[in-house]
């Protein structure tokens, strides 16, 4: 269709010298640079932009300001783009969201025409589609297809880069209307770093769209903005206001996370629709929308118009549209006593006290019926302008922590209290002018009267919800979904409150109805913008790439990537038992505790004793919470009188640093805690040949006499300064070597070389788990949980209740000791060759669950399935037969054992 534009005029946004073409449902459409998708389509003849959410009713442009759901479209694969605030771009592909097969012929429309008993009235999910039960899958398929706005293509992969930028400014102004521009200019002129965000294509608000009168003032303000250096983000929108005045601003493919010192809300007011029959027909438009089309895009919104209003804004609209060339036939004013002379002076018929009954027409507006006390007047028209008064845009005030109150004079909500740093200016803050009463809805009509355009909620739906007992705005909202759509109530907050007040016989001005909460996101927002560049921090040890390059299967282990195995967990475990293995344990937490009070500090933090430790020795310790539960374990090496080196579990590293520093902050003892987890790489060289292999790389005497089990010594190994701890998590002679990270890969390679004659194998986490299980060494967090105390966990020897000093966990553990044990952590061997699943249950005498399997593996070395379990005390004796459940329904008989499965006397460790 040919582009029909009005003659060029000052204030228009379009650049007629630059044509831009795009496709709309497969057909090429062209507009001008400066057009929105909506204005270009409207100019080329499009009147139906979408189908409604539930009934698939035709919807045309209503607000032209990004406030209503009527023009949501799909642009280049992205659903729910607001056509009325999105500039056109050459070659963009625009499609409708939810019609089938097309916008003009949508069979899903039939859903709304079905008889009420099978229709989609409120609560239909719970009422209509429950019988017969087996038919639900079919209903669901149909309903899912019909409901919703747009579809996501699960195969779609984003190719565009989305950006996230953190911004600090002194002042952020949301809204580029007159008040926002003034506030921004003032702030910037006072030397404050100021940014302004506006979602329209032109700054100025009504100065820009309200006709030629505002242009001089707008030019003045824009001039001040430029010379004061205000940063302008436009078109862009604030997605919400979060605590601490955090404001995400979306501009194109960028999310700006603003943290302004001061936030100015200048979001203005939003013109409201009126509620009457067929008030959603294409051609029914807000006054501000029609004026935007005429004044900014130079498009005729219609040939012949009727204005229905309840405020003076209707007069403004009528005069401005008439001035722009629209033939305005009549203005029907719901107020009986307003002064309509201004309209009459413009030669327009003025009907005082008339409210709209219904719009006429099937596919578009062809007329309107207005009524006053039963008297009716009919008009033919192709544009029906609604001017239902406006409400302040206060969503950001409440989101940011402020409150609003109902102002009876203005008949709208205004800001009441504001959070620190927030200011509200302009009409969002309220106007001084008193407002007339607005009719809640039309007198009885058989047509649908839409209250919520997003969710297709009618006056009848709200009435029904109240009849069914949901007798408040909040309850009705949850039942009917009124105000819950993409516009978050901007088009229906006011009207839903009025309808409910009327139904319940309440005075709408007495504030007894309340208002629902408008939550973020303020506008439809793509997940790509929310995700932008994702950060997923990953910890890598100094030998990460060596593992990956040598067949290590790198898996997430907490924040780390660690090798699960190098392809053959069994033979890796065998290598440790029979000759030599090497594992990277750099992920262990490592802390230095240093100072005159270091020993006393550790004595207060652990159930163990450390003050009596000899120098150059290492000891196993557990850490308990004050509730007596085991929260971590590891080793403590004494390096000097005042210096200890502590290792923690890998997953507990960060938590233990916090735990240690926390108690030190409380006790203020004379010692320092330094976390050296990052600084130090650590490898465990283990197996019968560990000594011989390692001795070749160092002058340090590794003989059993000079460096026995639980020794700690410093040495140069292959030129690298190391701390060697002789400990044995995996049950064989072993040396845990700690060294500077930067030398990690070097030493690893040297150790592998030195182990070559002994067929050394690197081993991963899985073989380590089998090896430690053979020794019945627990893993904190797997074999223990928040209820595990060291007495029941089989470590009473660690708990020194006779220590003179107080220590963390002492009183709870004393309490447990007085109470007596109820459960025990024991080892078990399966008797039928089956391997129980970890987490499965131990079955009690009554057939119910009595205990829990925490670790379970098949040990090739031992030729049987072994594990650890929590069992009640009655089942915990060495040699007790227990029954383990299996997900298959079968059971697995097993025998309780207290001694380690492998090398129970630790001879190999100490050799």
């Amino acid at each position, binding site marked *: 269709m040919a582009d029909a534009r009005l003659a060029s005029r000052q204030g228009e946004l379009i650049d007629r010298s630059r044509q831009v073409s795009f496709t709309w449902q497969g057909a090429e459409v062209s507009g001008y640079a400066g057009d929105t998708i909506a204005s270009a389509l409207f100019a080329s003849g499009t009147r139906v932009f979408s189908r409604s959410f539930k009934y698939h009713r035709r919807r045309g442009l209503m607000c032209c300001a990004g406030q209503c759901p009527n023009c949501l479209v799909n642009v280049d694969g992205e659903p729910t783009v607001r056509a009325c605030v999105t500039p056109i771009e050459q070659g963009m592909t625009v499609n409708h969201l939810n019609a089938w097969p097309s916008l003009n012929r949508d069979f899903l429309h039939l859903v709304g025409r079905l008889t009420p008993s099978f229709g989609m009235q409120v609560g239909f999910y719970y009422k209509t589609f429950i019988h017969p039960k087996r038919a639900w899958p079919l209903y669901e398929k149909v309903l899912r297809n019909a409901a919703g706005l747009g579809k996501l293509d699960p195969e779609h992969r984003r190719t565009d880069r989305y950006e996230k930028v953190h911004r600090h400014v002194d002042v952020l102004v949301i809204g580029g209307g007159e008040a926002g521009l003034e506030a921004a200019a003032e702030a910037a002129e006072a030397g404050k770093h100021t940014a302004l965000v506006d979602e329209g294509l032109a700054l100025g608000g009504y100065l820009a769209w309200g006709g030629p009168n505002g242009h001089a003032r707008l030019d003045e303000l824009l001039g001040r903005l430029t010379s004061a250096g205000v940063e302008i983000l436009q078109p862009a929108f604030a997605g919400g206001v*979060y*605590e*601490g005045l*955090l404001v995400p601003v979306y501009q194109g493919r960028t999310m700006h996370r603003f*943290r302004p010192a001061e936030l100015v809300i200048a979001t203005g007011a939003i013109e409201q629709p009126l509620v009457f029959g067929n008030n959603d027909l294409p051609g029914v438009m807000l006054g501000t929308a029609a004026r935007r089309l005429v004044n900014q895009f130079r498009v005729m919104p219609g040939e012949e118009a009727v204005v229905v209003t309840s405020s003076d804004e209707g007069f403004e609209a009528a005069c401005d549209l008439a001035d722009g060339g629209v033939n305005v036939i009549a203005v029907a004013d719901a107020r009986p006593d307003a002064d309509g002379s201004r309209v009459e002076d413009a030669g327009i018929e003025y009907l005082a006290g008339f409210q709209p009954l219904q719009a006429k027409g099937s596919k578009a507006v062809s007329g309107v019926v207005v009524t006053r006390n039963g008297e009716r007047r009919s008009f033919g028209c192709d544009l029906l302008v609604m001017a239902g008064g406006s409400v302040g845009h206060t969503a950001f005030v409440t989101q940011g*922590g402020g409150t609003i109150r109902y102002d009876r004079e203005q008949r709208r909500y205004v800001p009441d209290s504001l*959070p*620190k740093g927030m200011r509200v200016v302009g009409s969002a803050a309220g106007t001084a002018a008193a407002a007339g009463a607005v009719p809640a809805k039309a007198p009885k009509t058989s047509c649908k009267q839409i209250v919520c355009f997003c969710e297709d909620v009618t006056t009848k739906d709200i009435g029904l919800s109240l009849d069914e007992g949901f007798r408040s705005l909040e309850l009705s909202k949850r039942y009917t979904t009124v105000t819950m759509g993409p516009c978050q109530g901007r088009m229906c907050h006011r009207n839903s409150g009025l309808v409910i007040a009327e139904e319940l016989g309440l005075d709408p001005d007495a504030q007894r109805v309340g208002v629902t909460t408008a939550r973020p996101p303020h506008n439809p927002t793509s997940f790509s913008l929310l995700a932008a560049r994702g950060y997923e921090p990953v910890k890598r040890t100094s030998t990460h790439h060596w593992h990956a390059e040598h067949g290590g299967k790198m898996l997430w282990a907490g924040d780390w990537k660690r090798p699960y195995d190098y392809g053959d967990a069994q033979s890796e475990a065998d290598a440790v038992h029979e000759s030599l293995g090497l594992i990277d344990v750099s992920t262990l937490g490592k802390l230095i505790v240093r100072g005159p009070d270091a020993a006393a500090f550790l004595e207060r933090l652990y159930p163990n004793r450390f003050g009596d430790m000899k120098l150059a020795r290492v000891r196993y310790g557990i*850490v308990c*919470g*004050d*509730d007596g*539960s085991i*929260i*971590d374990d590891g080793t403590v090496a004494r390096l000097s009188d005042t210096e200890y080196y502590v290792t923690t579990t890998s997953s*507990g590293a*960060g*938590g*233990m*640093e*916090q*735990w240690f*520093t*926390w*108690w030190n*902050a*409380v006790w*203020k003892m004379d010692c320092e805690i330094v*976390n050296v987890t990052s600084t130090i790489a650590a490898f465990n060289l283990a197996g019968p040949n560990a000594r011989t292999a390692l001795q070749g790389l160092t002058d340090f005497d590794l003989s059993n006499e000079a460096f026995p089990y639980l020794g700690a010594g410093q040495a140069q190994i292959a030129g690298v300064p190391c701390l060697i701890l002789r400990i044995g998590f995996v049950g064989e002679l072993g040396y845990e070597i700690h060294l500077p990270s930067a030398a990690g890969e070097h030493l690893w390679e040297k150790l592998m070389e030195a182990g070559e004659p002994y067929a050394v194998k690197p081993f991963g986490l899985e073989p380590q788990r089998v090896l430690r299980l053979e020794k019945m060494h627990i893993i904190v*967090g797997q074999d223990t949980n*928040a209820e595990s105390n060291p007495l029941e966990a089989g470590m009473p020897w660690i708990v020194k209740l006779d220590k003179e000093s*107080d220590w963390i966990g*002492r*009183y*709870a553990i*004393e*309490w447990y000791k*007085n109470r007596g044990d109820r459960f025990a952590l024991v080892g078990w061997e399966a008797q039928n060759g089956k391997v129980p699943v970890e987490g499965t249950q131990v079955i009690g005498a009554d057939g119910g669950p009595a205990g829990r399997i925490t670790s379970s593996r098949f040990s090739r070395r031992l030729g049987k399935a072994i594990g650890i379990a929590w069992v009640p005390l009655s089942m915990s004796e060495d040699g007790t037969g227990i029954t383990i459940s299996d997900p298959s329904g079968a059971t697995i008989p097993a025998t309780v054992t207290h001694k380690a499965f492998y090398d129970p006397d630790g001879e190999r460790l100490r050799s």
Partner: protein
Amino acid sequence: MSFILTCPNCGPRAVDEFSYGGEVTTRATSSQDDRALFHYLYFRTNTAGDQREWWFHSSGCREWFQAERNTTRNEVLRVGRPGELAGAEAVPDAAAASEAAGG
């Protein structure tokens, strides 16, 4: 939660730089009084109003401090290094502590 918390060392930062340490409590020092011990270990006042609590600047200086926060408005009234805010003996919140240590 996106409020701003002022670290006594590093200044105002987004709250996601910190770990929460729970209410400031008074430690029970006996196993004889069940009620007092359990109260310390498992009961919290869960104040709707001004509350003294522990925070750890985990992404920053990695030091502990205390804050007084209005829990209904998430407004931080004042902060101080341990011992700087006058009040009862301040020890870690046993329940929150175990959680922090476990993670």
